[in-house]
């Protein structure tokens, strides 16, 4: 770098200029793709939420009631005068700069479609500043608590909805029997063994569970009367989740707290479930969402109260909800014109339609959730198995070593096979040869599992390789067998990394379209699939179909809403994966 400085003679001047030009050129190249993607994302967001028709008053109202309090919360949590100064400076300076620049471009160069300076300010200045402050704020205790609570609320809703969706396909009655006869006794036995330090009880866990599952499958054919769906979900999911929450808290805070943490959400969820069924809503899903949101939230709140730090952070959800309500009130009182977003509740719950305003994504979302759940199970099991075999079970030399190297090269090559080719494999092998059916969910799940398997394997191998050899040797020297070392030492240490890699790979699977087309997935289905062998559509398939429609409302509205939905789900999955990795890195 020292040589970049100008020397005394003219030669230094020349090379410095060239170097600086090159440095900025390469910097520009580095951000080119990101800027291009950013602009496109801004446009798709504007289209999905109809922001082009948002009046400045409407924008200003929500900016003041929602964004400003959130920024204040982050600044309060960060508690850093320098950050505050910088953020306020950026917000203020950005306002002037964007307004001036935007007006200048519009006046002198070319009018910019579907964008005004207020929106430009929101996306170019306010959004990055908010993201930055959220990042800085989450470092403070108050912010960490606030975002932790928010994450549990959102995550609970997502998991609850996904679980409710899965029961559209999987037989809840069979699950009821399997849980009662297999899962519950097995878990009980394991807990007993753990409590009494009796390995024998723990060894019995797996056989007992298997016998129970087989018995359940058999009884399903015989038994004719079952409790109502709501009671099944209450018994098989709500009560265990509440009990787990109560146990987590009870260890440290005693009986009263445990009953409160487990019981209160359970009561609320049950009441919600019965109310929903009388109101005509899908009661089981309401119950699942309430209990899966309520219990983790209650556990978290109890923990925060226990620690006694950052209590103010618990107010964040109220702050945001209050902001939305206040904004809506102001908009209504003054009669500000409001945009009509394409992406709204009815878009997520309605079936596709020929008329753009009625079109919805619901069946495709259900299809995607079911496929991804299957892919997750398959690719995780196969990925872990293969990577354990490659990393722990095979030597580096000898004939087995050669086999390992062949497998390794094979995995690397599979990762680079185009996804359409996997589609052909699914069509030829699963759909036609094995007769699993053209365009069925199970064919799609198998195809996508094979597609992401190489990525899962490679990341799982990296995670396993990062477990220190010291630990393996320590376990070996204790006389552990290979499987015991793998199970007790290697896998627990590698698990966060394996999960992160699997979730990232699932993100790839959820957006894949070409293989689905090849296996004949339906372009549009009007009902959610109700079995693994029914025709289905998936979110990217539906986007592909809509993108081919000629009407502008489809192209610019409905598809944009679909794209944003897909991207939000992707961001959620990848965010979870990254949080998981960061947490594991902090832990070790």
């Amino acid at each position, binding site marked *: 770098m*020292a*040589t*970049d400085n100008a020397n005394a003679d003219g030669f230094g001047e020349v*090379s410095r200029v*060239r170097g600086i030009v*090159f*440095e900025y050129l*390469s*910097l520009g*190249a*580095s951000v*080119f*793709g*990101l800027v*291009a*993607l950013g602009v*496109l994302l801004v446009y798709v967001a504007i289209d999905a939420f109809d922001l082009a028709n948002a009046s400045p008053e409407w924008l200003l109202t929500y900016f003041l009631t929602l964004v400003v309090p959130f920024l204040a919360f982050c600044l309060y949590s960060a508690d850093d005068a320098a950050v505050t100064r910088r953020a306020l400076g950026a917000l203020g300076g950005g306002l002037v700069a964007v307004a001036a620049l935007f007006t200048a471009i519009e006046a002198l160069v070319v009018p910019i479609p579907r964008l005004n300076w207020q929106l430009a300010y929101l996306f170019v200045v306010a959004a990055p500043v908010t993201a930055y402050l959220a990042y800085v704020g989450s470092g403070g205790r108050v912010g960490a608590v606030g975002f932790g609570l928010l994450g549990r609320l959102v995550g609970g809703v997502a998991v609850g909805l996904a679980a409710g969706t899965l029961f559209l396909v999987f037989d809840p009655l069979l699950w009821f029997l399997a849980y009662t006869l297999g899962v519950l006794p097995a878990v009980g036995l394991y807990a007993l063994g753990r409590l009494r330090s009796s390995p024998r009880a723990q060894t019995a866990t797996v056989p007992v569970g298997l016998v129970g599952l087989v018995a359940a499958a058999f009884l399903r054919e015989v038994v004719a009367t079952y409790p109502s769906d709501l009671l099944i979900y209450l018994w098989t999911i709500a009560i265990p989740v509440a009990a787990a929450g109560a146990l987590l808290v009870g260890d440290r805070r005693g009986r009263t707290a445990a009953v409160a943490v487990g019981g209160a959400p359970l009561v609320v969820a049950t009441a919600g479930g019965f109310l929903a069924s009388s109101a005509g809503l899908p009661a089981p899903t309401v119950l699942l969402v309430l209990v899966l949101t309520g219990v983790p939230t209650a556990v978290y709140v109890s923990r925060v109260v226990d620690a006694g730090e950052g209590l103010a952070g618990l107010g964040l959800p109220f702050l945001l909800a209050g902001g939305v309500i206040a904004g809506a009130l102001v908009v209504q009182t003054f009669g500000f014109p409001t945009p009509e977003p394409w992406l709204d509740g009815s878009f997520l719950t309605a079936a596709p339609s020929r008329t753009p305003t009625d079109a919805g994504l619901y069946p495709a979302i259900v299809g995607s959730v079911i496929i991804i759940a299957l892919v997750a199970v398959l690719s995780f099991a*196969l990925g872990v*198995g293969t990577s*354990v*075999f*490659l990393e722990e*079970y*095979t030597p580096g030399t000898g004939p*087995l070593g050669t086999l390992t190297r062949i497998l390794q090269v*094979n*995995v*690397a*090559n*599979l990762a*680079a*096979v*185009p*996804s*359409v*080719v*996997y589609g052909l494999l699914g069509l030829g*092998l699963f*759909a*036609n*040869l094995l007769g699993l059916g053209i365009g069925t969910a199970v064919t799609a799940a198998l195809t996508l599992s094979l597609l992401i*398997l190489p990525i899962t394997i490679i990341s799982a191998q990296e995670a396993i390789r990062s477990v220190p050899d010291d630990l*393996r040797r320590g376990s*070996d020297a204790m006389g552990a*067998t*290979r499987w015991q*070392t*793998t199970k007790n030492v290697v896998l627990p240490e590698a698990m966060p990394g394996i999960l992160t890699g699997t979730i990232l790979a699932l993100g*790839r699977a*959820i*957006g894949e*379209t*070409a293989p689905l*087309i090849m296996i004949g997935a339906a372009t549009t289905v009007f009902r959610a699939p109700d079995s693994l062998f029914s025709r289905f559509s998936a979110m990217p398939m539906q*986007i*592909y179909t809509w*993108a081919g429609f000629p009407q502008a409302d489809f192209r*610019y509205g409905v598809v944009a809403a679909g*794209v944003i939905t897909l991207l939000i789900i*992707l961001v959620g999955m990848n965010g979870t994966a990254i949080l998981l990795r960061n947490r594991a890195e902090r832990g070790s």
Partner: protein
Amino acid sequence: MTDSTESPDLSRRGGLTRLKEGTYGGLFAACAAITLLTTVAIFVTLLSDALVFFRSVPIAEFLTGINWSPNPAGGGQAFGIIPLLIGTLTVTITAAFISIPIGTLTAIYLSEYATPNARSILKPLLEILAGIPTVVYGYFALVYVTPALKATLFPEMSTFNALAASIMVGIMTIPMVSSISEDAMSAVPDELRQAGYGLGATKFEVSTGIVVPASISGIASSYILAVSRAIGETMIVVVAMGAQARMPEIQEALFGIPFVNPADVLLQSGMTITVAMVQITGGDLTGGTLPYNSMFALGLALFAVTLVMNVISDIIAQRYREEY
């Protein structure tokens, strides 16, 4: 765990334990075998249907035909891959014009100029480019990029065109070039850079004159991988490029030299190998028909080309790993 001399000892260890050990080992081996089986299955599936296809359409005709119409309305099917190859090459080359220079410059910036802080932010952000679903890129190309280009640079552009699709394919493959090239550049030992600085070279001269040549095999392998990815890319072209298999018009320039006007290829719709495959799925998928089998012949061609490119890239990449 490389304990290969494990010997059974009946006196000390129960049969049940050994059974358990063997079961787990077998399970893991079975999982690993599935990856091998996948490769075999891909190969067999493609080959068996492709062979049926080649019984009706000779390979020579398939490889040299200049007409592709598997399901014509009036009859008279034609299975010539040339127009599809032209479509694929158009997209691949145009995309490479974007991904290669930008990706290389990005790699140089990340490896030589960026502060550790900037690198730790930029690298994961760049990976986002490869993580966006390709159907979304296709939608962007169709709905935003094409109208923007039409309004500004190319008024005569058609709604479905190769240029917008290629731009998106190029952007999507930037991280492929940048991350592998950056790995190669970072692997260049610092002594080489120090030697350059010691001779009075500027940072620019060290970057372009020492680091890039030293890591050239890694950079080349990243180019091949990015191109191979572009060849196999499906959704972007399906959504944004349309589905018209056509031969470009050959014009005569001065002195009778034939040439093709690039605008004629780029601004019009076209068809790649992958689009042709997707288009056939609109028909009967239960098998047995000629178009169905032709899909597998195209798949085989695609599989073979990408596999060869991967192997080449692997061999080249091995070289830089050996060098340091």
